[in-house]
């Protein structure tokens, strides 16, 4: 009896192995996305972006004359074990040449040892710096890495805001710590160091101590690397105390939550972001319109990133004239094209996007100041 159960279980595992593989008249790509778990909402945007791209591609004649379809597998966002099996299934069972995702850096890094043997290409928006320095030839990154935003904010502050005394305030977690470190590094490149480097804990409500030491240090601009709620409180308290700092910082400062909570005090706050729905760029405008028409909501970063990912994948296969991963990777190396997030041109390590947007809050709306390119 036990034998039967085990056999059934084994048969189940094997059966999953034997289904699928693309039929002759379609080309199947994979997607490894957070379909379940606490970040399932991001997976939903991911899927909406990709589905819209696939619809467009198929309406325009498909890939190599065949219909394009996507096999989705769940990687539970930042769960390395789930990502390993999800990628393994796409690689061994569906045998796809390209996978969109995994998006989370830790999931990318966990799966690289497996997929980097040339059997498939992963197109990702993972922004962790190590993603493209692992010597893996088959990762294509279509967003700037974490360093880029910090560099862009610092460069804009120095060149356009003409400040030289810069202070930092960050939240005491991996997001804030990493961000603050990168800002310090970016300042160092310009031969500067922060006049003060303050931290706070998640959920703090009173920032008077940090603000007063920033004031004592004579900061003209404060770079913030913290979450939406805390950012709003910091800006509000600064204005209540009548302190003169300007603010710049992470993507949090262009998010609706921040703008709503900070109210009028949000005006003039500068931040770096990879995707701005209000960007007047025609590509972005067209994408936002299409997305809003199809889904009745505004797109966000995930939808835009993996919309671009799917479009690029189709283009690369068409350019290569085959689905062979090695040839498709060569096509990526020659690619030079405009997408929603920016202009794509791939370096040898797989980094294809070298720009980010600098945004300022004007009249309660984030508006584009400039695009910083590296």
């Amino acid at each position, binding site marked *: *009896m*036990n*034998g039967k*159960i*085990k*056999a059934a*279980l*084994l048969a*189940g*595992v*094997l*059966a*999953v*192995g034997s289904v699928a593989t693309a039929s002759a008249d379609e080309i199947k790509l994979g997607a490894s996305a957070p*379909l*379940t*778990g606490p970040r*399932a909402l991001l997976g939903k945007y991911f899927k909406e972006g990709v589905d819209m791209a696939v619809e467009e591609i198929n309406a325009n004649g498909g890939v190599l004359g065949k219909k394009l379809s996507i096999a*989705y*597998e*769940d990687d539970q966002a*930042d*769960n*390395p*074990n789930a990502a*390993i*099996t999800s990628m*393994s*299934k796409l*690689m*061994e*069972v569906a045998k796809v040449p390209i996978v969109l995702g995994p998006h989370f*850096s*830790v999931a990318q*890094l*966990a799966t*690289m*040892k*497996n997929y980097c*043997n040339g059997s498939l290409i992963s197109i990702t928006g993972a922004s*962790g710096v*190590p993603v493209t320095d*692992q010597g893996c030839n088959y990762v294509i990154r279509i967003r700037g890495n974490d360093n880029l935003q910090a560099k862009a904010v610092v460069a804009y502050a120095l060149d356009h805001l003409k400040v030289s005394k810069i202070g930092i305030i960050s939240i005491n977690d*991996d997001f804030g710590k*990493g961000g603050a470190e990168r800002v310090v590094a970016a300042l160092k490149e310009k031969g500067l160091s922060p006049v003060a480097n303050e931290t706070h804990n998640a959920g703090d409500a009173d920032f008077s101590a940090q603000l007063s030491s920033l004031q004592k240090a004579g900061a003209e601009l404060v770079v913030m690397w913290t979450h939406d709620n805390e950012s709003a409180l910091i800006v509000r308290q600064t204005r209540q105390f009548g302190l003169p700092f300007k603010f710049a910082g992470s993507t949090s400062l262009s998010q609706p939550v921040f703008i709503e909570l900070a109210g009028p005090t949000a005006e003039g706050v500068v931040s770096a972001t990879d995707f701005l729905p209000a960007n007047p760029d025609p590509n972005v405008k067209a994408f936002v319109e299409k997305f809003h028409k199809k889904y009745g909501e505004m797109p966000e970063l995930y939808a835009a990133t993996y919309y671009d990912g799917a479009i690029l994948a189709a283009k690369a296969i068409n350019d290569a004239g085959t689905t062979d991963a090695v040839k498709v990777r060569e096509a990526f190396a020659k690619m030079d094209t405009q997408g929603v997030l920016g202009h794509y041109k791939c370096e040898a390590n797989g980094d294809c996007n070298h720009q980010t947007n600098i945004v300022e809050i004007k009249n309660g709306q984030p508006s584009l100041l400039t695009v910083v390119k590296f």
Partner: protein
Amino acid sequence: MKISMRNRKIILAAILVAFLLPPFLGVNGYALQVLDMAFIYAIAALGVTIATGITGMVVLGQAAFMGLGAYTSGLIMTGTSLPWWLALPIAIVVTGLIGAGLGLISTRIKEHYLAITTLGLNEIFRLIVLNESWLTGGPFGLRDIPTLQIPVMGGGLAQQHYIPLFVLTVLVYALALRIYKTSFGRQMRAIRDDDLAAESMGVNSRAVRVMAFALCSIFGALAGGVFVLTFGFISPNNFLVFESIKMLLMVVVGGLGSIGGTFLGALVVVGLPEVLREFQTYYLAIFGITVVIILLTVPRGLGIIADWLLAPWLPGEEGNALAQAKAEDMSNAATIEEEDERATAVAVRLRSEREQAVVNAPKATGDVLLKVENVSKSFGGIRALKDVRFDIRRGEILGLIGPNGSGKSTMINACSGIVRVTAGKILLDGKVISHLPAWDVHAAGVSRIFQNVRVWNSMTVLENVMVCHAATRDTHVITGAIGTAKARADEDMAREDALKALDLMGIRHLANRRASDLSFGQSRLVELARSIVNKPKLLLLDEPGAGLRGGLIMELAEILKQLRNQGMTILVVEHRVKLVVSMCDRIVVLNLGDKIAEGSAQSVARDPVVVDAYLGGKVERKRRLKAIETTT
């Protein structure tokens, strides 16, 4: 459907061979990788089974041990470029030591407090790994660990590792099965079933808990190290509290405490979600519902299947030595009447034996065996014992009586080391024992039974008695698992003595029964058998006759006399006056924590203070009330 042990071995062998086949049948790398993962988790979850399922300490932090093993071996390989076969053992030893340290904590923090503590430790582990990025690589993990290449097996890493991982898993499970059956295994189970009884029967619960924790962490570390060699990448996210809970789930789905069930549990918890992946966003919900259904309908189902298959290696199937006893048990229909008849027969036999041997029975010598010196015990504001002093002379049966709440049980608990005295001391053969832990008191020669029967329900009757045997008392995990000549000899001696003790109680035929299947009277006899298997100097009996019927009472009285004739000294707390008077040489009377009388049965029965304590006060007060009424 009765399938012999031999056939079960054949079935198991066939299943094991079937597990070796997939790589040769061209099964895809994904399925193999899932099974690889299941094997690794099966090893880690086995640690949880040992600590939680077998020893009864809920561990919710196994992922931290796994992570500790993984990071230690990973860092050794990347940092010092030592080969994996050095890194892995070092990691296991380091983690095992840390686990033993935590085991020491576990002797102070128990049950759900321990569960929460291990949960907290898991989180602390994550935070340290996350923040100390100079060492651990931080949130992006350790990335450049060399994976173990085994080109002989061909194919990708999943194919290469499949058979080595499976063989390793089988070996680890065989080791666990072996440990389960040794004296150490019995001690772990005794602590789970009833730690108080285990301690007072000589089980050093502190040592056993520490060892069990160490074993748990060692299995975790082994799994973690193997994980690193297979996947070459680890990050804090691999070892979250969620993973610990998953491992506990494997143990629970596998029928808490079943070794084979844990393997099946790991297959289900790792494999089932993968099989259900087709359901996309709903697959984990379906998995959750399936688990709930398994737990509702067949709560120990996987465990029962696995234990049936592994029965040849589990206790309770000792083979030919007990086949005869077993056959007797089968023919013995255990109705109450027959039970009674049997007990009466044993009593008659024992009495006639005693009468024949009465000539050379040792007489009570009169020198003091146990000295209770001015002992007091307070529970908060209540003083259960006040300045009590009395002696127990070698070779006598001393009765300890008194109304309810007079401190009799507290006295017995103090003598057996279960409660610490507040003041005064207790000496055995001139040595102070009142400060020793219960197991050392037992080792010094004091044994006891409890007022409410406390046998270890999940174990066989034979095992119940063997737990207490002095030869297998020390926790020798390694020699026991290897099965050295000495360990085997000790085991045989313990078995033989246990069977003798059961024989004396007239219940040898029950040796292979599970203790939970016994009647109350039988359990009482098992308890008595295990308390005398070491031939203690002093036997403490807390109401041994409570809840017994006529025949069994007779048997009990005869057994006690027999033990006394063998030179054992007995302290007995008993309510039945007839039993006390017929049995005891002397009697000590307690009332409200004070000793109020001491002497022969007759003199105590006539003592006015004793009469007053039992009956007198109330009668007198009534009379006075009446007097008041008549005057008004």
